[in-house]
Structures are given as C-alpha cells and as structure tokens.
C-alpha cells in the first residue's frame, strides 16, 4: 500500500519556508514510497510562485486560493483542511508558531492522533508510527508509538530533518479552492487585525561578529556585569536567551532565537544557556560556539564546538581576566 502523506507549507512573500523540504524528508521517513502532497494556502501571484517552486519536490501540490487567506489564520485553515483531507490521512506541519496554532485542534477535528514536535521518525509497522521526541528541555529523548489507524497530525521540529533536495518530483499543481471553499469561507471567532513589528533596540546583534550570549544561568540581574565585562574584553556584543528578556533584564532586541533575532556571528559564547531548539533556531552560519554550563547534560554541548563545564559566575570573571592579561 502506498501511503499518502500531506505536508502543510508555511510561506511568506512568495517564498516557501525551509521546512517545506524538511517535511519531504520526514514523509519519506514515514514511508520511503509515500505519495507526498503539499498543501499551500494563500492568494494571488505569491501563492502561484510558491506552488511552482515546491512542485519539483512534491508529487502533487494542492493549492487553496482565497483573498481571505492573504494572512494565514490557523482557525480558518483548520476548517479548510478538514474539508479536503481524506479520512485517515497523515499530515505534517512544522512545529513553529503556525504549526503550534493549527495542529492540536486539527487532530481533534480529524479525530486523528497527534504527534507533536517530532525530531525523528523511525517508520511505520502496521498502523504504529514510531518516532523520537524530546522532553524536559531536550535533556532526555523518548521513543513514542502513535496509533495512526485513524490518521495522524504530525508536527516536525524545524531543522531536525535534513532538507530533501532531490527535486525531480515533477509535481502537478491541483487547484483545490472550490472543494475547500464549498459552503463558503469558514466563519471563525478569531479575526486578524495586523502584524505589529517588534521594537528595534539600541544594538543590532544581527550585525555582530562576536556575541556573548547569556541565559537563565546568570541567576540575577546584577550578575550581568560579568557578561558585559567579558563582551568588552572580547570586543563583542551582549545577547541573551528568552528568560533573560522575560525577566526584563535585557531588552527584547537582544534575544536570540525563533521568537527573537537570527544572528550570524563568527563566535558565539553561550553562557548558562541550555540550548533549546527555539534558541538555536536563531543561530545561523555555524559560528565557532563555546558553551559554558554547569550541567554536563545540557543540550547546548551537542551544538557547541568547545564546552566548559563550570559555574559561569566563577568561570566568566576568570576568563575575562585571562583575556585582559593576555594583551
């Protein structure tokens, strides 16, 4: 039996998200012979560009075109998907801010299993899909089996599946608009108003070559002094993880990660940062990464080039002294 796997494509301004090709890889991990269909909702010329772009990677591209989809409202899209997806289908979406909005409710509406934030898929045995997830901030992994006899909604962690660049799928674009909009555009109790852009701060960390980034491990606002000292010694800028911004210790414009800034430094110092995927999602260009953390199990040590297992409150001042003394 050839399994049919669907992937919901996130796109913006006529460009498909990186996850579009990662989901091809994920679908092939479910079943290497799967027939893989992309679903793209949007409107106008941008939508067509995206459909044509990914048609080389998907056997079929289902397009839903409506003016009302110029901004993706997960509540409406959920209803559209329920209208067009076959019973017992498998659908993958990225585990990003859109997928998190769409997927849990979709699984209920489809009466299908929900496999959130998969980092790997090991295949299907009968109707049991085996996958890998992470728990406790990535400190441990777990194998899960998912009963997909009634279909499944899967969200794939961005960056976890290696993009399938094979192309050559020679996909056809199929216009599903009429079917999806039968009965009219879905009424939802949630209306989009606008996107309010994040504030710009005093430093632009996206331009820095050297970033000294600090996480919850700094424990107290007053301790930030040692981070500034190190940044000064290195000639870099101070960045941070989300909890430091949540605590109002540094401004939002210094936050690295999916809900913060995407940075491309040459050197990245991660001080007291555990290394969640949302944080690492904001670090591009494979910088030389140094992690300093007191927990040897912290996932950041997987991503870093060099690690120091130490208390940053003790180690960072030592390091700063050494740098200043080495001139």
């Amino acid at each position, binding site marked *: 039996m050839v399994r049919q796997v669907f992937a919901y494509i996130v796109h913006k301004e006529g460009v498909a998200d990186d996850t579009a090709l990662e989901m091809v890889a994920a679908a092939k991990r479910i079943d290497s012979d799967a027939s893989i269909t992309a679903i793209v909702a949007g409107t106008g010329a941008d939508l067509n560009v995206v459909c044509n772009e990914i048609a080389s990677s998907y056997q079929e591209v289902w397009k839903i075109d409506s003016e009302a989809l110029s901004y993706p409202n997960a509540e409406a899209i959920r209803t559209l998907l329920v209208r067009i997806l076959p019973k017992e289908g498998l659908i993958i979406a990225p585990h990003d801010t859109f997928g*998190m909005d769409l997927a849990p409710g979709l699984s*209920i509406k489809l009466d299908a299993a929900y496999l*959130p934030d998969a980092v790997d898929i090991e295949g299907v045995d009968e109707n049991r899909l085996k996958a890998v997830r992470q728990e406790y901030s990535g400190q441990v992994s*777990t194998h899960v089996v998912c009963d997909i006899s009634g279909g499944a909604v899967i969200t794939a962690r961005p960056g976890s599946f290696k993009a399938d660049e094979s192309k050559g799928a020679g996909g056809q674009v199929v216009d599903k608009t009429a079917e999806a909009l039968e009965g009219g555009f879905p009424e939802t109790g949630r209306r989009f108003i606008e996107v309010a852009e994040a504030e710009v701060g005093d430093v632009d960390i996206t331009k820095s070559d050297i970033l000294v980034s600090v996480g919850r491990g700094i424990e107290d606002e007053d301790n930030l002094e040692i981070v500034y000292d190190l940044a000064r010694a290195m000639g870099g800028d101070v960045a941070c993880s989300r909890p430091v911004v949540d605590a109002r210790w540094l401004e939002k414009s210094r936050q690295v990660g999916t*809900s913060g800034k995407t940075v491309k430094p040459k050197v990245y110092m991660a001080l007291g940062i555990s290394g969640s995927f949302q944080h690492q999602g904001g670090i591009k260009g494979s910088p030389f990464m140094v992690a300093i953390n007191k927990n040897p199990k912290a996932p950041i040590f997987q*991503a870093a080039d*060099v*690690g120091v297992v130490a208390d940053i409150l003790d180690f960072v001042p*030592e390091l700063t002294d050494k740098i200043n003394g080495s001139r």
Partner: protein
Amino acid sequence: MEILVCIKRVPDTSENEINVNRDGTDIERDDLVYSVNEWDNYAVEEAIQIRDRVCGSVTVVTVGDEETEEVVRREMAMGADKGVLLSDEVFKNSDGRGIAGIIKAEVKKGKYDLILTGAQADDGAGQVGGMLAAMLDWPYASLATLIEVTDDKKIKVGREIEGGNLEMLEIDLPCVLSIQTGINEPRYVGIRGIRKTASAEIPVHGAGDLGLSPESVGKSGSKIKQLDYFVPDAGEGAEILEGSVDEIAEKLVELLKARGGIK
C-alpha cells in the same frame, strides 16, 4: 470575567539535571525538585491581572495525583480564587487528548468566559490548549503575549510569532488562549503566602464526577504511547576542556584568538 487556568506540576528543568532511570522506563524521579510549569505561572498571573481590572474570578485546575495539590495551593497563594484537582486512578498515563478531555468535562460543569493554558509544558508538546478549544468548539490562539479586554463579548490578543512580531487578533468569548512567557512579570509568593492557603478547600473530581468513561482516558484512551526514555548518542558534541580553571581559561583564550573571538 470567569477565568479558568490550566496548570501542571512538572520537574523544574532549570533546577534539575534530568536523568533516565536504569531500565529506561522513566526519568529518575528521586530527589527531583517539582514546581508549577513556567508558562502556567504567567497564565495565572495574567488571569489575576485581568480579574483585577474587570472583576470576576480565577479558578486554577490541574489533572494529577494528590501531590499535585501543592501547585494548586501555590497558585491560589498568588491570588487565584479557587482551585480544582482532577484526580483519578484511571487518569494515569493519559495523553494530551486525554488530559484535554478531562479538563473539558470540568469546563462543562462551570461557566467560563476565558480559559488560559501555558504554551507548553515539560513534554514540550504544546497541545492541551488547542485540543481543548477544538473539543469545546471555542476559538483558540496560541502564544499570547498581550491580552486586552474590549468588552464582555470579545478580547484583543497579540500572538507572538517569528522574530518577536505580534499577530494582533480580535477573538470572541468564550475562547481558549495559550500563554507565552514574558506576557507579564509573575508575582513572587513566599512560604507565608502559601501557608495561608493551607486550609483552603480544594475539591477533587474523579472520572465518575465528570461523567467520563474509564476507556476514554488513561492508557486505553491514548493514541500515543511512550516506549522508553533514552539519552541520544552524543555524536560529535563539543570538545570539553579539562583541567584546572586556570588551564581551561588559558586554553579557551588561545582557541578564541585563533577563531577571531578576541578583537
């Protein structure tokens, strides 16, 4: 406004080193420090602030065992008016859908305008809120970092999306929102505050009280099951510098210099 906040008691990952137990069936639970899920704390604070602005009440609810009561008391000490514990032997090993179903049954017993959950908990799933909303047929928005009550029919919500931008929405009540960290600054509660809630009555509702059949919850009601816990192969990983603090710092300075990390 009648607000329900869903909370979960979880091992505190910033306090604990989490290890897999010997046979890989679970994490090592001895000596773990538990607390309320970080995201839920923001949700309770937000609910309290909304109540203080527009009147009404805040109820916290959790699905768990007797030990879970402590987090209910903690959040009541923050200022929640009521607490409910949903607990039953048959609830054990429920998946996200099971938990959402149990909470839905409790929701049906009351009359709520707004339900808040955390954006995610220790399992990193971020599923219970969205499932609950779908089960209730209420509107849902995840990752809220801004809530403004417009009137008693609708609210204005900012969802934090990529890059920290805010997707501004208008949502009809009743609705379900998942709360992202940073929406507020959760107030501190001391031991003394928690002690004050020690005598507060916290009703416990089981499957019978909620009209739930045992098959619909727990292991039998789950579509997803955990096989084992493991620590993945370290793979490449970082080169861990060893030696005295002085030696390590010395080595690191050399490495940084070689990589252009010192200007």
